[in-house]
């Protein structure tokens, strides 16, 4: 495992996996997964299609049986068919399915009874959850007539109903339109610090936006675990982007030649009005790059030290 970092001691972990493995015949869907998810974090579980994200979440939820290995949520094993462990988490599958003949109110009442909530707790919890996901007005409508976004919000509602310390969300935004995605991500962000969210996705922008920790799985194997900001800085390339005004186009050859001759410049590339300069010595570049540009009379529209995107890191790591 490359760059794998255990972020907290197992005793403090909200989710912990030890050697979690699942084979489907010859296919190794998940292999020797060692993972520790800190409490209160929003943990992004990234991987290409078929990498093993859903299998991992289904094993965590006790719906799929590991070939070997174990998993715990809040210290209670979930991979041994013990139904009491299911009180510790809420689960949202990739495509949540509900009884179409039920209303959200009836479905949530049913779920609440399974969790042993009293009548008053149930009333309060249902009202709060429906408000949180914005389904109060549809609470007495049949779920069978709901749109995809409403189904997804209903899925989040049923996962949150019993106020679990951990949420397992499998691709919660994959079937939503941009507005729906925004709403769901906002909802997840609001849970930060209160609930540990384990979120699988292949939509990197979503993960980058809400997650504070990231793991990348490739062909069933965990290849990277890190805090998001650590990861971004660790993979940061030393590069500067300079965008100039149109009257500076094309850039003077003398300026480009002078730039390439600097000892701290590693590579120079140009795309229309944007000049990208990879540097070998950041300090020297910080001191000399702007004066050099001004010396050649360039009018600068934007000057920015480049930060890598999660997408770039993901493509690099998961290739």
């Amino acid at each position, binding site marked *: 495992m490359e760059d794998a970092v255990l972020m907290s001691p197992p005793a403090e972990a909200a989710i912990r996996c030890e050697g979690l493995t699942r084979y489907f015949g010859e296919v190794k869907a998940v292999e020797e997964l060692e993972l520790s998810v800190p409490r209160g974090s929003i943990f992004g579980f990234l991987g290409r299609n078929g990498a093993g994200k859903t299998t991992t979440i*289904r094993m965590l*939820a*006790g*719906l*799929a*049986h590991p070939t070997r290995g174990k998993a715990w949520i809040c210290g209670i094993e979930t991979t*041994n*068919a*013990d*139904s*009491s462990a*299911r*009180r510790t988490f809420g*689960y949202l*599958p990739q*495509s*949540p*399915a*509900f*009884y179409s*003949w*039920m209303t959200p109110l*009836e479905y949530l009442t*049913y*779920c609440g*009874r*399974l*969790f*042993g909530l009293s009548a008053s707790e149930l009333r309060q919890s249902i009202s709060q959850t429906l408000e949180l996901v914005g389904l109060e007005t549809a609470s007495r409508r049949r779920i069978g007539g709901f749109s995809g976004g409403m189904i997804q919000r209903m*899925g989040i509602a*049923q996962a949150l109903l019993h106020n679990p310390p951990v949420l397992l969300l499998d691709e919660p935004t994959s079937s939503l339109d941009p507005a729906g995605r925004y709403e769901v991500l906002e909802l997840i962000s609001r849970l930060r610090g209160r609930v540990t969210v384990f979120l699988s996705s292949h939509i990197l922008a979503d993960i980058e936006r809400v997650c504070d920790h990231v793991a990348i799985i490739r062909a069933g194997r965990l290849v990277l675990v890190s805090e998001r900001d650590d990861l971004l800085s660790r993979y940061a390339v030393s590069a500067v982007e300079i965008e100039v005004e149109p009257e500076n186009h094309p850039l003077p050859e003398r300026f480009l030649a002078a730039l390439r001759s600097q000892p701290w410049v590693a590579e120079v590339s140009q795309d229309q009005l944007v000049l990208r300069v990879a540097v070998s010595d950041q300090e020297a570049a910080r001191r000399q790059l702007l004066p050099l540009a001004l010396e050649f009379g360039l009018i600068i529209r934007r000057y920015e030290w480049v930060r890598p995107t999660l997408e770039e890191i993901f493509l690099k790591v998961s290739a």
Partner: protein
Amino acid sequence: MLISAYLLSIGLMISLPPILAASLRRRFRLPWLLFCAGMLTFAASQAVHLPLNERLAEWGILPGAGRLDNPPLWQTALVAGLTAGLCEELARAAGFALLRRYRALEHGVMLGLGHGGLEAMVFGGVMVAATFSALLPLSGSDLQALPLLPEQRQTLELQLNTLLASPWNAMLPLLERLIALGLQVIFSVIVLQAFSPTGSKYNRLRGAGYILLAILYHTTVDAAAVWLLAKNLNPWLLEGAFALCLLPGAAWLFWRFTSSPPAIHSAAPLAQEWAVFLAALRKEFLQQWRTRRILVVAAVFGLFGMASPLMAYFTPQLLGLIPGGEQFASLVPPPSVADAFAQYHKNITQFGFLLAVLLGMNAVAGEKESGTAALILSKPMNRWAFIVSKFVTQASVYLGGLLLAMIGAGSYTAVLFEASDWNVWLSASALLYLWLLPFVAITLLGSVIGATTSVAAGAALAGSVALLLIGSLPAASSFFPGALSGWAAQLGAGTPPQVWNGGALAATLVLCLVCLLFAIAIFEQQEV
């Protein structure tokens, strides 16, 4: 008092094994798979044991019916004990060989409970129910008037005396089955010792030694039972002697458990499990109502119930209206109450069976296919509660439907023919209801086995047809649900003799229970 005592004894023989297994499951977090595997090892052993003993009797090695040159008692006891020991212990060893993940002591106990449990249900509950219901009408009657051989009459007298002597005697078969259950558990744990995690030559020899030990122990116990039974001892004394055989094994088992005690699991409180079951039950009833299944069942049963006497009453007239049918109409005897009931019986057995399969086939498969099961089972929903709630709901809906059918049929019969004997309608409908239940249970099992509704439908239909076919075999007919349908027909027709078939009643309940246990065991192992 006597009847109540026997009903209690029969009920306990059938229900105690699964109750003990349920308690063990909670304490040690054991799967129902092991209990069902035990039931299978028992069934497999008997599939070899019973024909083997028949063949040995043909060869004169074991006593046979009507033979004059029966072998000596010592030989009978030894051979009968040895065949039982060989067949049952080798079947058990095969079971453990297949169940490689289960090597702990408690696993052996659970498998033993399943093995001995099915034995208690079939050779205890069903057989005692059959014997009791057959003998009870003979109490007080003149046995000399019966066409029996002198030795048969003597045996019958002895059985009747034991049966009627005291209600406490009803507890004798229960005691015997409990001792046998304990022995089966001990044999299972002994056989389990044969399966060591390492496969060295020494361990293989040691393993073979354990299997041999289990066979010898089983042989000794069964041989002693055959020997003592032939001595016509006081039945309580006989059970006491039988219990003595249990002692060494029980002491060994106790030592094994105390020397390496298994981890005890802190299961959710029982009240919590039942609360989950009640929540599931509530949802199932709501589903039956919202999806209009209750209305479909009520309409079909109600309609065919009411139509039964109408069809019986108007058939000759309808025949007369058909051109050329007048000549046949005169041949048809005037319709009677018996005809109305025969029509009712035919309608209920045909449409009840179809409804049970059609409405039940997607109960579990449909939820697996749509994904609703995955979401619900990620919550603290016990798999047994998921399955049993579906069975109870369906059984209740059919009960309501059958009541409607009975009221409709009985009322129209009273209007068209003569005042109905409601006792007959009620008894016959109760029998038809019990006849229907195994099909509901088999369909539910099919729905668990099938990954999709169509596969579930095929499995349910195949199981139901197999049940009907096996029930039509002369050797099995009196112990299968078909006997209940025949009994109901006999009641409706008023044909004597009206003899209770307790064996068929008990066998039907056992069949439902076994189907449900298998459905739970399989569902527990499935990924959804």
